[in-house]
């Protein structure tokens, strides 16, 4: 890294000096990472491949570009695409006979074999997303980051804005943070928005709809404090609260309706209804994180999150990353994550005939149930002397639902009502800057 003298191009002196100091003390290229400065763009890219056993698969490339546009003032652009295919549980329970469902569009049907979890295999989607952030000094030890985001898929549109302020106090040992965000999303489901708790019609019948699209808004505020503990440790504590309003239901999820006779048999006619959720959700989050570097230069990164809302969901998340640094720029970083959530008040695995007319809300979406998620993974990275980095991450994610077969009605006790879900992810990443690319290209012509 060079500190070039220039009167025309802005220079991020503070960051460059920090990086230079790190380079001197810790070995070039193994400390401060890349710095966007002057005409140099910092480029981060990653490709994620995510696959669930017998369910969805996702491919998601991400590109992030950062540039210093004025002294200590940056613009960051993140471009994301993702392609999703495969099958997703539709909310219905397994039965001892094959089950036929009408697709969300109402144009066809799909049939699930007996004694298997019903999966909607018409699940396909592609998405493009853009996020732009402007990070600027605002005054005495105060920084602001202002962002806009846009995301589009064939049945979902999301736009949002955010503002984050960070004030350093206490001789820069403490940073106070305030974050505000607002999102406005529009869902335009295949075949229109189903009316909650009305029946899924037998093909070629048409479902009752409430228009072709619905909106929701999400407002969030965050208060945070980051504290330097000593030369090699810091901690962060955030409190957030948020409110979602509008259409919060999943238009593609249904519930099975059973006969009111204790047998566990599906209702004779139209045994499925569309789910329905409240039109408001208030949630709060406490988030703590600690980062500590050991004398051997390994780094421990530990976080804990407590989340609770007025739907009855409470969750605990512990995330641990431990980075082993090796000579020559190699590092290995094992990752463990544990998540546990309680179910929503209106979560139901099934309904009994008639309940769909008396209940206000009901959902069999497994994501609102009681379950745990365990993640184990490892990341390998290699940092070149010029600061560029290559990395590769492999992880396994397992979700285990609380088995409630004993509480199930009649013959449903013989079915697996909350099957485990297993997923694998593979991520490859490259970080470099535009100077490296230019120098490489110029080198080709020498």
């Amino acid at each position, binding site marked *: 890294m060079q500190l070039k003298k220039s009167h025309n191009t802005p220079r991020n002196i503070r960051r460059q000096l920090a*990086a230079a*100091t*790190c380079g001197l*003390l*810790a070995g070039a290229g193994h400390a*401060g990472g890349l710095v966007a400065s002057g005409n140099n763009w910092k480029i*981060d890219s*990653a490709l994620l491949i995510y696959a669930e056993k017998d369910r969805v698969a996702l491919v*998601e490339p*991400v590109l*992030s570009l950062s540039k210093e546009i004025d002294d200590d003032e940056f613009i960051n652009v*993140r471009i*994301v695409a993702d392609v999703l295919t495969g099958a997703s549980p539709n909310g219905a329970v397994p039965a001892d006979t094959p089950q036929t469902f009408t697709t969300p569009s109402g144009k066809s049907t799909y049939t699930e074999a007996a004694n298997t979890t019903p999966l909607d295999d018409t699940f396909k*989607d592609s*998405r493009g*997303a853009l*996020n732009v952030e402007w990070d600027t000094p605002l005054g005495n030890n105060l920084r602001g980051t202002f*962002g806009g*985001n846009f*995301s589009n*898929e064939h*049945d*979902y549109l*999301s*736009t*949002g804005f*955010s503002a*984050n302020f960070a004030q350093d106090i206490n001789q820069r*040992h*403490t940073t106070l943070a305030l*974050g505000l*965000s607002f999102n406005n*999303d529009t869902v335009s489901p295949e075949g229109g928005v189903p009316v909650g708790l009305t029946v899924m019609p037998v093909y070629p019948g048409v479902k009752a709809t409430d228009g072709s699209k619905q909106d929701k808004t999400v407002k969030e505020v*965050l208060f945070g404090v980051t*504290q*330097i*503990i*000593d*030369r*090699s440790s*810091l*901690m962060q*504590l955030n409190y957030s609260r948020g409110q979602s309003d509008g259409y919060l239901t999943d238009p593609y999820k249904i519930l099975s309706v059973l006969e009111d006779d204790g047998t566990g048999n599906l209702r004779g006619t139209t045994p499925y209804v569309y789910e329905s959720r409240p039109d408001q959700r208030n*949630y*709060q*989050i*406490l*988030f703590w*994180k600690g*980062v500590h*570097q050991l004398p051997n230069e390994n*780094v421990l990164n530990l976080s804990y999150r407590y*989340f609770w809302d007025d*739907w009855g969901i409470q*969750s605990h998340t512990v995330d641990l990353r431990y980075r082993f640094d090796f000579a020559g720029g190699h590092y290995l970083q094992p990752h463990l994550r544990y998540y546990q*959530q309680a179910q929503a008040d209106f979560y139901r695995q099934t309904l009994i005939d008639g309940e769909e007319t008396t209940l206000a809300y009901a959902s069999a979406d497994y*994501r609102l149930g009681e379950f745990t998620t365990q993640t184990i993974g490892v990341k390998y990275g290699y940092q070149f002397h010029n600061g560029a980095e290559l*990395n590769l991450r492999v992880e396994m994610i397992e979700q285990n639902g609380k088995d409630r077969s004993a509480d199930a009605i009649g013959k449903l006790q013989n079915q697996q009502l909350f099957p485990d*879900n297993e997923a694998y992810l593979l991520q490859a*990443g490259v970080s470099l800057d535009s100077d490296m690319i230019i120098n490489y290209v110029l080198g080709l012509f020498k």
Partner: protein
Amino acid sequence: MIKTFLLAAGIGASLSACSLEPVQPWDRDILAQQKMQLVADPLETYLDEHIYFSKEASSGGQGVGGGGCGCN
């Protein structure tokens, strides 16, 4: 609710009280390293948050903004 605020206030107070060692600007070489940042790899964090947002009923905590998607 009140308990939660008291807990948060307690943790916050202990956070600010446990800066036992003033760290001078010229001693911040370790804290300036990329691997010591609260979010050391923003893209990895973004992808993780996207996955768990689509698979779990909780999200957020670390920051605000970043946008929504139809995956949940």
